[in-house]
C-alpha cells in the first residue's frame, strides 16, 4: 500500500492528488506529434506512438479499476487540455506481456496482475501549445528558471517530431526498499531539422534552436545538467567542436553504442563566470557522410488492398544485427470495425514461413473492445520479417462516424518490445552517481538493452452511408414493408363469390366480341 503524496515542494499538487485519489501505482502519459524515423534517426531515447498514449498500473486496493480508469482519463484530459476523455472501452486494452516497464532496480515493480493495467492510444490526437503549457506548469520552477526557459512553444513546434511525456512511479529510497518515494519524470523529445533553419549546415546552437540561452539553474534543483553527444565516429577526434568548454566529459554505453557526452553543470559556479548566459554551440569541422549507424531493430507498417470492403495490414520488421537473432514481442491493437481474420495471419522471413513462439489473440466485440493480437516472433540475424493479416471493413451506424468521415479512421500504432543484443558489452552504470542519466538509459544486463518501438499509425477508410438521408431511408423502408404487408393483408381478407352474369349494353357486347377474337374469356 503506497502512501499518498504529502510534500508538494517539488511534486505538483494536481498530479499528487490525482495519484492518491485514483489509487495509481504507475502512470505514463505521452503526447506526440510526428513520427520517429528510426531508420534515419536511430533508436528513440524514449519511444512514443503518434497521438496520445496513456498507460496506468493501478494498486490492487482499487475496487473498480474500469471506473478509476475512466475518472483518471477525464481528470488528465482536464489537466493537459488533451481530449483524453475519448478513451473508453473501445480503445482501451488490458495487455498481457508487452507493457512491462523497463526493468529497473529502483522501480518497485507491481507484479504481473494484468487486471490492474490499462493501456489506451488515441492516434488522432493533435499536440499543440495548449498541451505544452500545462506540462511546463508541472515543473517546480515552471518556465521561469532553469532549463525550462528554453522551452518556448513557437520554436518547439517548428520541428519534425515533438513528444512530451509525464511518468509517475514509486521509487525505493534505498536498497532494502523500506521507504518508498514518488518519482515524477517529465520528458520532452524534439527533433529539429537544422537543415531547414541552419542555412544548410549541421551546426547548431541553443540560440538557433530555441532563440534563447540558459541564464541560470532552477533554485529548487539539486542537479541541472546539459549533456551534448560528442561521440567521435570511427575513432576520429577533432571532428567537431563544442563551445563553451564543458565542465566535464562523461562516457557511457548507451543502446549498444559507446558514447561520449560533454556535460554542462548549471550549478557549478565556473559556468556563468565569463558571461551571464550559456549558449552551447556545436560546429562540425568536416562534412560528414554517414550519420548514425542503422539501428538493430526497426519496423514499418502499412495498409494494402483496394476498395472499401477488405484490406490487409502488413508489418515489416528489420533485424540488421549481422549475426545475432533475438525475439520481439509484437502487440497489435486494431479497432473493432476492422474485422481481423486471424486465419489469414502469415509471418514470412526470408521467403519461408516463421511460426511465432507464442500467440495471444483476443477478438473484438462490436462496439465494446478492440482486437488484441500479441505475438512473440523470432527474428533471425540480418533479415526482414513480414507479418500480414487481412481484415474486412464494417459499415457503422451513421452516428458512429466522426464529423469528417471521409478522412478515415485511425489504427493505433503497434508496439514492438525487444531485448536487443548490443554490439558492445555494457558495464553496470553506477546509479548513485548519475541517477538522471541512468534512468534515461537503463540497462539491466551487460549484453542487451531494452527497446520499445512504435510503428506508424494507419489511416483506413470505411464505407459510409449517406448522412443526409436518415428520414428518407426510414420512410422508404417502412413503405416497402407496408406495401408487402398491405398486399398480404389484402389477399388474406378477401373472399371470392359468384356474381350473376348480366347482359350488358352495347359497349359490353362490343368488348365481348373483341375479347372472343383475342381468346380471352368474355366479361
Amino acid at each position: 500500500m503506497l502512501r499518498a503524496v504529502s510534500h508538494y515542494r517539488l511534486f505538483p499538487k494536481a498530479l499528487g492528488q490525482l495519484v492518491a485519489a485514483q489509487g495509481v501505482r504507475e502512470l505514463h502519459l505521452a503526447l506526440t506529434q510526428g513520427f520517429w524515423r528510426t531508420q534515419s534517426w536511430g533508436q528513440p531515447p524514449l519511444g512514443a506512438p503518434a497521438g496520445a498514449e496513456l498507460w496506468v498500473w493501478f494498486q490492487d486496493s482499487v475496487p473498480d479499476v474500469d471506473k478509476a480508469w475512466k475518472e483518471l482519463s477525464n481528470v488528465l484530459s482536464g489537466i493537459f487540455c488533451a481530449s483524453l476523455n475519448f478513451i473508453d472501452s473501445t480503445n482501451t486494452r488490458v495487455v498481457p506481456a508487452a507493457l512491462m516497464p523497463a526493468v529497473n532496480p529502483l522501480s518497485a515493480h507491481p507484479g504481473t496482475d494484468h487486471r490492474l493495467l490499462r493501456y489506451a492510444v488515441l492516434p488522432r490526437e493533435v499536440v499543440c501549445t495548449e498541451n505544452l503549457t500545462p506540462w511546463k506548469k508541472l515543473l517546480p520552477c515552471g518556465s521561469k528558471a532553469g532549463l525550462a526557459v528554453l522551452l518556448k512553444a513557437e520554436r518547439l513546434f517548428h520541428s519534425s517530431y515533438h513528444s512530451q511525456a509525464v511518468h509517475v512511479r514509486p521509487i525505493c529510497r534505498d536498497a532494502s526498499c523500506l521507504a518508498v518515494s514518488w518519482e515524477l519524470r517529465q520528458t520532452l523529445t524534439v527533433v529539429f531539422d537544422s537543415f531547414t533553419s541552419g542555412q544548410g549546415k549541421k551546426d547548431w546552437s541553443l540560440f538557433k534552436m530555441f532563440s534563447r540561452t540558459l541564464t541560470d539553474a532552477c533554485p529548487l534543483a539539486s542537479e541541472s545538467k546539459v549533456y551534448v553527444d560528442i561521440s567521435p565516429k570511427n575513432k576520429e577526434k577533432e571532428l567537431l567542436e563544442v563551445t563553451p568548454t564543458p565542465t566535464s566529459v562523461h562516457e557511457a554505453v548507451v543502446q549498444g553504442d559507446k558514447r561520449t557526452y560533454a556535460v554542462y553543470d548549471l550549478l557549478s559556479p565556473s559556468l556563468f563566470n565569463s558571461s551571464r548566459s550559456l549558449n552551447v554551440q556545436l560546429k562540425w569541422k568536416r562534412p560528414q557522410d554517414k550519420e548514425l549507424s542503422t539501428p538493430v531493430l526497426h519496423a514499418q507498417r502499412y495498409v494494402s488492398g483496394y476498395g472499401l470492403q477488405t484490406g490487409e495490414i502488413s508489418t515489416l520488421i528489420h533485424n540488421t544485427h549481422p549475426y545475432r537473432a533475438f525475439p520481439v514481442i509484437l502487440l497489435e491493437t486494431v479497432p473493432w470495425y476492422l474485422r481481423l481474420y486471424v486465419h489469414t495471419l502469415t509471418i514470412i522471413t526470408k521467403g519461408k514461413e516463421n511460426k511465432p513462439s507464442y500467440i495471444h489473440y483476443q477478438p473484438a466485440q462490436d462496439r465494446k473492445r478492440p482486437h488484441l493480437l500479441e505475438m512473440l516472433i523470432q527474428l533471425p540475424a540480418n533479415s526482414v520479417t513480414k507479418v500480414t493479416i487481412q481484415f474486412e471493413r464494417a459499415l457503422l451506424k451513421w452516428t458512429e462516424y466522426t464529423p469528417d468521415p471521409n478522412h478515415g479512421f485511425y489504427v493505433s500504432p503497434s508496439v514492438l518490445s525487444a531485448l536487443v543484443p548490443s554490439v558492445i558489452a555494457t558495464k553496470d552504470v553506477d546509479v548513485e552517481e548519475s541517477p538522471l542519466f541512468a534512468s534515461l538509459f537503463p540497462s539491466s544486463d551487460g549484453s542487451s538493452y531494452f527497446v520499445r518501438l512504435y510503428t506508424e499509425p494507419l489511416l483506413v477508410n470505411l464505407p459510409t452511408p449517406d448522412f443526409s438521408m436518415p428520414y428518407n431511408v426510414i420512410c422508404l423502408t417502412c413503405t416497402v414493408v407496408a406495401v408487402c404487408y398491405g398486399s398480404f393483408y389484402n389477399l388474406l381478407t378477401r373472399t371470392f363469390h359468384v356474381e350473376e352474369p348480366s347482359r350488358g349494353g352495347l359497349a359490353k357486347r362490343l368488348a365481348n366480341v373483341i375479347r372472343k377474337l383475342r381468346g380471352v374469356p368474355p366479361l
Partner: protein
Amino acid sequence: MAAPLVLVVLVAVTVRAALYRSSLAAFIAERVEVASPLNAWKRVVEGLALLDLGVSPYSGAIFHETPLIIYLFHFLIEYAELVFMITDVLTAVALYLAIQDYNKVVFKKQKLLIELDKYAPDVAELIRTPMEMHYIPLKVALFYLLNPYTVMSCVAKSTCAINNTVIAFFILATIKGSAFLSAVFLALATYQSLYPITLFAPALLYLLQRQFIPIKPKSKSFWLYTMQYAALYLCSLVVIICLSFFLLNSWDFIPSVYGFILSVPDLTPNIGLFWYFFAEMFEHFSLFFVCVFQINVFFYTIPLAVKLKEHPVFFMFVQLAIISIFKSYPTVGDVALYMAFLPVWSHLYRFLRNIFILSCVLIVCSLLFPVLWHLWIYAGSANSNFYYAITLTFNIGQARKQSALVPQQNRRAAWGRQGPHGFHARFPCSVQFLRKVHRL
C-alpha cells in the same frame, strides 16, 4: 424417372465443379449477396482457427454459426467442396421425392372431389391430369439445382445450403407423414437459423390433414395431436441445444447465434431491408424498430394458417418466401429454396397478371446488385443509396410475386367449385363493390 434426375444431378455437379476450379470461386465467395455474416465460409474457417488458437469462437463478433457446424466441419474441412455439392444434391433429391408424394396426394383428392361431384361441369380445363403432373418433381429438382442463385451459393460454400437441406428433409418427412422425423428436422432448422419455427404451423396442418383429424378448436383429437407434435419438436430442440452446450462447454453460442439474429448488430450490406434502415436509424428508436421488424417475420403465420388451412403445402411455400424476404440477414440461397417450388403451382400461372414484369424486376435487380456494389465500394462513383434502392426493388418484386400467387390459389379453388363465370371478390367488411374478373 430416375434417369432424368440422375442426368440433372450430373449436370449440376459438373457446373459446380467447373466453377470451383475457376477464378470465379474467390470472387463469388466475397459477394455480400451470397455470403452474409451468418453463413459466410470465411467465418467458419475463422471460427475453426480461433478454436485452434485456444480462444472460444464466440468470444469475438466474427463467428455466428452453431456448435454443430463447428463439429461437422472440424472433421470435414478438407472435403468442404464435396460436402456442399452433396448437400445441394440431397436437397434436390429430397424435394423431388417430396413433390412426387405430394402430387399423388393432390391427384387422389382431385379424384375424390370429382367423384363426389363437387366440381362445376365446365371446369374441364382446370382439372389436372397425371400427364402434366408427371414432370413436376423433375422440374422442381431442376429449378433448384440449376438456379444461378443455388449455384453461386454452393460455389461460395455458404452454410445456407446446409439449412436448405435440413428444410428440404423436413418437407419430405412432413409429406411422407412421419411426425417424429418432421419434428427433428424442424428442430435442426430452427436451431441453425431460428426463423423456420414458423414452419411449425403448416407442418402441423399437413399432418392433421393426413391423419384426417378435423381442424376444429373444440375437437379433442386436434389438441392431442398438436400437443404430441409440439412436444416432439420442443424435446428435439432442447436435446440439440444441450448437445451443443456439451460440445464447447459453454452457453456462449446462444447470444452469439440467436442474439445476433434477433438484435442485428452487424450492418454489413446484404439483399435485405435491415442493414441500411438500422445504419440510418436514430439511436433512440433502434430497439423499437428491431422488435417491429422481427415481429414482422413471425406474425403472418396465424392469418395465413387460418386462410390457407386447406392447402398446407402452399402455406409452407408462402411461409418460406416470407422468411427469406423479411429475415435479418437474407441471401440468395434462401430465395433459391422457395423458387424451387414454383413448378408445383404451375397450374396457377394462367391467373397471374404481372408475372412478366415481376420476373423482369427480379432478373434485372439480380444483375444490378454486383454492378452497383462495385460502383459504391470500388469505383467510388456511386454511394450506398444506389445499392439500397436495388435492395428495396428486389424485395418489393419478391413480395408482389408472392402476394400475386396467394389469391390465385383461393380463386382457383372457388372457381373449381362454382365455375368460371362471373366471379368476383367480396370483402367481408362494409364496402361491397363489384370487380370484374379481369381486374382481380
